[in-house]
């Protein structure tokens, strides 16, 4: 009898508790929120695998010059029309060549690098714009909040791609300004998130208590508001990167983003349409790269969100 009870207790100790998704042993070991989050994340093997894949892809992209030098042994000057449309594996070209004889693998690496840098820069810019406006709206409330949220509603009503095309028609865009423009049409979601969270945080008991005790505004912001808003911001930023990658690729695909000959995953696709019958790998490879990047970052971001706040992901 006692053994059955002990066994049941031992089994129960292995199962995660409903409220914070940690086992009893983990709960005892972890003290801080960060430790708990890390333990939750460690158990999500899919997210870890996705994270590793993301790191590999980032290294692939940022190591493009190294790949050009040591892996493929071709650079920009080595393109030759004699080697057009080679299939993957032919004549020493690992992923084949395109219509101008350029090695696809090297272009893929540089394209990944360009797309990733634009996306990351856009995320940072959007964080700045959306974070500032959202915080102002959330913290000061009333008419500041009304004005900013009206502005957010207006920007949300104009389809982002149309606005980007509009801007692309009026001004010529370089890679950096492309990132800024993408951020300029994508900050709204973040500002709403931050505003909502700060508004609900302001009303919490511990914030009221801190104010009653006489804590300064700076102290309240630093000790109570920022640590609670940070996980939401991190998750948003992680999940925004694949969105921006696709936006940049779409714009380059339409001819409004990164201009050839600078490779971007989007304009590689654009250039390959005309040669669809001669080489289908030219279309498949850049698109597949985008797909894998977006999928991996999404899975990693989902895992991050589940780890940082299991309540958010409870419905899954």
């Amino acid at each position: 009898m006692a053994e059955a009870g002990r066994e049941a207790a031992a089994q129960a100790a292995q199962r995660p508790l409903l409220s914070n998704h940690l086992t009893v042993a983990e709960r005892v070991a972890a003290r801080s929120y960060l430790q708990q989050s890390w333990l939750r994340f460690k158990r999500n093997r899919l997210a870890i695998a996705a994270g590793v894949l993301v790191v590999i892809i980032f290294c692939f992209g940022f190591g493009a010059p190294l790949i050009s030098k040591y892996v493929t042994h071709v650079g920009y000057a080595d393109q030759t029309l004699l080697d057009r449309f080679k299939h993957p594996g032919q004549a020493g070209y690992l992923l084949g060549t395109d219509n101008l004889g350029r090695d696809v693998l090297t272009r893929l690496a540089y394209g990944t690098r360009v797309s990733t840098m634009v996306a990351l820069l856009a995320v940072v810019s959007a964080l700045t714009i959306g974070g500032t406006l959202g915080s102002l709206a959330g913290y000061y409330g009333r008419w500041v909040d009304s004005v900013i949220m009206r502005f957010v509603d207006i920007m949300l009503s104009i389809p982002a791609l149309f606005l980007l095309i509009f801007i692309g028609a009026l001004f010529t865009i370089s890679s950096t300004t492309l990132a800024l423009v993408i951020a300029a049409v994508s900050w709204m979601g973040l500002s709403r998130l931050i505003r909502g969270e700060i508004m609900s945080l302001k009303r919490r008991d511990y914030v009221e208590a801190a104010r009653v005790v006489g804590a300064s505004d700076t102290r309240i912001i630093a000790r109570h508001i920022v640590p609670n808003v940070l996980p939401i911001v991190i998750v948003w930023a992680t999940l925004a990167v694949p969105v921006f990658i696709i936006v940049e690729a779409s714009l380059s695909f339409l001819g409004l983003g990164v201009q050839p000959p600078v490779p971007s995953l989007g304009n590689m696709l654009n250039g390959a349409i005309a040669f669809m019958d001669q080489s289908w790998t030219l279309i498949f490879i850049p698109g597949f790269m985008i797909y894998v990047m977006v999928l991996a970052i999404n899975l990693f971001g989902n895992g991050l969100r589940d780890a940082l706040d299991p309540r958010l992901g409870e419905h899954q």
Partner: protein
Amino acid sequence: MGRYVLRRLIQVIPLIIGITIITFGLANLVPGSPISSLEFNPDITPADLARIKQSLGLDQPLYIRYFQWLSHVARGDLGLSLVTYRPVMQSILEKLPNTLLLTGTALAFAILISIPVGIYAAVRRNSWFDQVATVGAVAGFAVPTFWLGLMAILLFSVRFSEWGLPSLPSGGTYTLGSSSIVDRIQHLIMPAIVLGFVYMASWTRYIRSQMIEVLRQDYMRTAEAKGLIRRAVIFRHGLRNAVLPLVTLLALDLPGLFGGSVIVEQIFSWNGLGRFILDGVQKRDYTVVMGTTLFISILVVVANLLADIAYGLLDPRIQYE
């Protein structure tokens, strides 16, 4: 109900005005003006230049030009195309049905697949169907639309005809000289599925999680305790509550849907508003670009309004907020 509709209508007006301000402001940020090419012409005296400027109304301050432009827009006059000199509004109205057809079919496809799959996956949670559906939804959500469109053309148009199988046309709204419904459906099916694909995946996940939430509710347990058979419980009480938030999600995704239609229309040579604005961009036809952006934004606002009203009708609790 009437008060709710009125409140929503009143909220819409500053929104539209804000959109017009942004559109007009952006268009006027462009360096140079319609007469900047004349300024370099040595034969034109400054007096002539001033006279031309005045006749075009360009010497007026910006806010007066804004109100003049706004009065035209309010009457439905979006100006003339700088390339074809046709009224922009007329071209828009010609191409609008095609875009609505494409977007509507994509929406219908996404809804018709996501609701049954999401609900069945939620009801049979952790079954193989659920696992497949969840993996499929996550995998499908990340697919870039333009890549999917190109691969679809590659497979269903190019390869199928090479292999001797019946193939789908790779572009256009209809085949010249043919007015059959079958032909139009053949042209519609690929672009619509490609456009709706991402939304199908994302809404499947959403409906599944909503349904799981609904199934946990007490009123479901009450209904079952009353003796209703399982299917009646799910359909009479669960379905409505699970699917209703989809209306809001749909309204939020609508701008993205129109944006996606730009890409799909470009790939499939679909004669709609998306391709119209892209052509305008390439030809630097600013009136077309500005007019189409404005038109689509107002369309989105109106669609959101209708969605809000529909939601208010379907969920009476909202009206009293």
